[in-house]
């Protein structure tokens, strides 16, 4: 590059600097924006559409559904399908609707969640802070358990439950859920407790706190976010479970999911699409509510450990 071109270049820069200044104006309808937002809107519609159809259908009467226009909003809004799904729909001889399944599910979910979190958090705490002999081996085996397909264990568990007299009872299912929640929850808690500063644990030991004292007084108060995460994982997992529910319970202890399936898949009579839709939404309502209520805490718990508290 010669000197003259260098000077010319410098002049060009200088003259440009004299022009209008400030951040570059942005076009709202740039090609980039249209592409990004267009894609997002299409994808959002794609995911929202089934829910829309479900809600709309559940609010229509059967004659209107038979017209076949599934995207049309209801001409005449009726809540009858919801009432029927909740309290009148029949499964076999039983015509109590989903309500019985709902209460069964509550009776299964609440103790399962409580039990599994209580045990797994103590497991995780012990594994993270009290490095006992064989802790690593124990942990490896536990994590390995997470990779064994459930189907392999279905039948052995049937036998075990029969032998201890819990087969077909709600408590049998609670036990199964608690055990199957163990690997992932223990991993979750262990990793969280490991991320807490070790010196806090040491300080508490010097201060004379023992195993349970440190757990309840030091660790627990610092771990609310991870407990919320564990709760969400367990509530949704157990509420949505179908396989264990159908295998380990009897008709009068069926959880909501199994009952929903029986209502929707019943082969007798007319297919009442509106009732089916209402029943499905009702079943999904509990996990949905949990997500909405604790979404913020959930994100915080997942991100915990990424930043120092």
């Amino acid at each position, binding site marked *: 590059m010669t000197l003259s071109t260098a000077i010319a270049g410098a002049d060009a820069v200088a003259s440009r600097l004299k022009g209008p200044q400030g951040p570059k104006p942005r076009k709202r309808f740039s090609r980039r924006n249209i592409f990004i937002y267009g894609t997002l809107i299409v994808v959002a519609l794609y995911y929202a559409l089934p829910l829309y159809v479900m809600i709309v259908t559940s609010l229509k009467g059967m004659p209107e559904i038979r017209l076949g226009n599934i995207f049309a909003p209801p001409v005449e809004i009726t809540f009858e399908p919801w009432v029927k799904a909740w309290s009148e729909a029949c499964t076999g001889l039983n015509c109590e609707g989903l309500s019985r399944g709902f209460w069964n599910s509550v009776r299964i979910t609440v103790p399962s969640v409580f039990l599994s979190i209580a045990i797994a958090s103590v497991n995780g705490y012990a594994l993270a802070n009290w490095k006992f002999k064989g802790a690593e081996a124990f942990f490896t085996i536990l994590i390995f358990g997470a990779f064994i397909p459930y189907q392999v264990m279905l039948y052995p568990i049937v036998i075990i439950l029969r032998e201890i007299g819990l087969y077909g009872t709600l408590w049998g299912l609670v036990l199964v859920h608690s055990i199957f929640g163990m690997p992932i929850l223990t991993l979750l808690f262990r990793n969280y407790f490991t991320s807490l*500063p070790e*010196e*806090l644990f*040491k*300080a*508490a*030991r*010097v*201060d*004379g*706190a023992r195993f349970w*004292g440190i757990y309840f*007084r*030091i660790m627990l*108060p*610092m771990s609310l976010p991870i407990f919320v995460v564990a709760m969400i994982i367990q509530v949704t997992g157990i509420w949505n479970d179908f396989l264990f529910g159908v295998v380990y319970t009897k008709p009068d202890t069926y959880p909501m999911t199994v009952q929903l399936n029986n209502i929707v898949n019943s082969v007798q009579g007319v297919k009442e699409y509106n009732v089916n839709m209402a029943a499905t939404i009702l079943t999904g309502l509990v996990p949905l509510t949990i997500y909405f209520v604790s979404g913020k805490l959930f994100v915080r718990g997942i991100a915990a450990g990424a930043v120092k*508290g």
Partner: protein
Amino acid sequence: MTANSVEIRGLDLAFGAVEVLKDLNLEIPEGEFLVLLGASGCGKSTLLNCIAGLLDITGGQIFIKDQNVTWAEPSQRGIGMVFQSYALYPQMTVKGNLSFGLKNARFAKAEIEERVARAAEILQIQPLLDRKPAALSGGQRQRVAIGRALVRDVDVFLFDEPLSNLDAKLRADLRVEIKRLHQKLRNTMIYVTHDQIEAMTLADRIAIMRSGAIQQLGSPDEIYNRPRTKYVAEFIGSPAMNFIDGVVAERGFAAGDTTIPLDGYGWADGPKQGPAWLGIRPEHVATGELAQGKPFRQEITVELFEPMGADTLVWTTLAGQPFHFNLDGQHKVATGDRMTIGFDSARGSLFGKDTELRL
């Protein structure tokens, strides 16, 4: 019965195949301020954790106040510990933090109140008692951490690099405060640090550790003036000691063409000969008129200088080897200047090439 506050006999600690501490012996008299000094990974914090009972040792015994506490719980040993990260319980107030240990020991409520109040007064943290740790500054947090040991009325204080997380100014302030606290309480204190200034200023005795063993145990004066190994000599002092590579001969220390007289050198075990290092501290080198009285003098050329305010560090070549020394900061120098330096090797240290031990 000994008057030792802490006594460690043949302590071994291994993590699997890795030996961290090897046959370590240490006796700490009542009321002593002992500093464990060493580079990262030398085992000094590990040793402190062993004394505290936070690590199960592989072999040996630990006595505190003549009680064998080798297998006692940390809280049963009569120790209090202050951590680098303060380790305050975040969900408790300062008061809660201070009283946690007392509550665990099932003290009466009135007694707890009284002890907390007294500790808060000693450490000047009364106005902070109802605050959470998050609302405290670094210095205040560390004071609360010290208070947690104070309320329990322990025999031995263990400090694990307590000032490392503070800025330089605060560190100096708290250093003085810890020293004052020790003079007031007269407890035995064991203090781990990698900062030699902290070690020199605080310690009654310093134990310099390297790869799991104590290299030298002595007063700061001994450590500074008569380092037992080359490592200790290198570690203590800033700027670092000069090491001149040479041979101890009959006439003195020969390095290349230069011979440095060794008259008056305090031999550790009688005069010896053979390859050795002669260690000279930069601050023991005299210049100009002061150099005239020294047994060894030499004219040198200034090759490089680093002004540091109070001092200027001058780099040169002596006996064909790099050499540096301190010059008064007010003394103006320039690269290429000639000047006469001198030192007395009686103030230096000789280390055998084979053993790296003081000759």
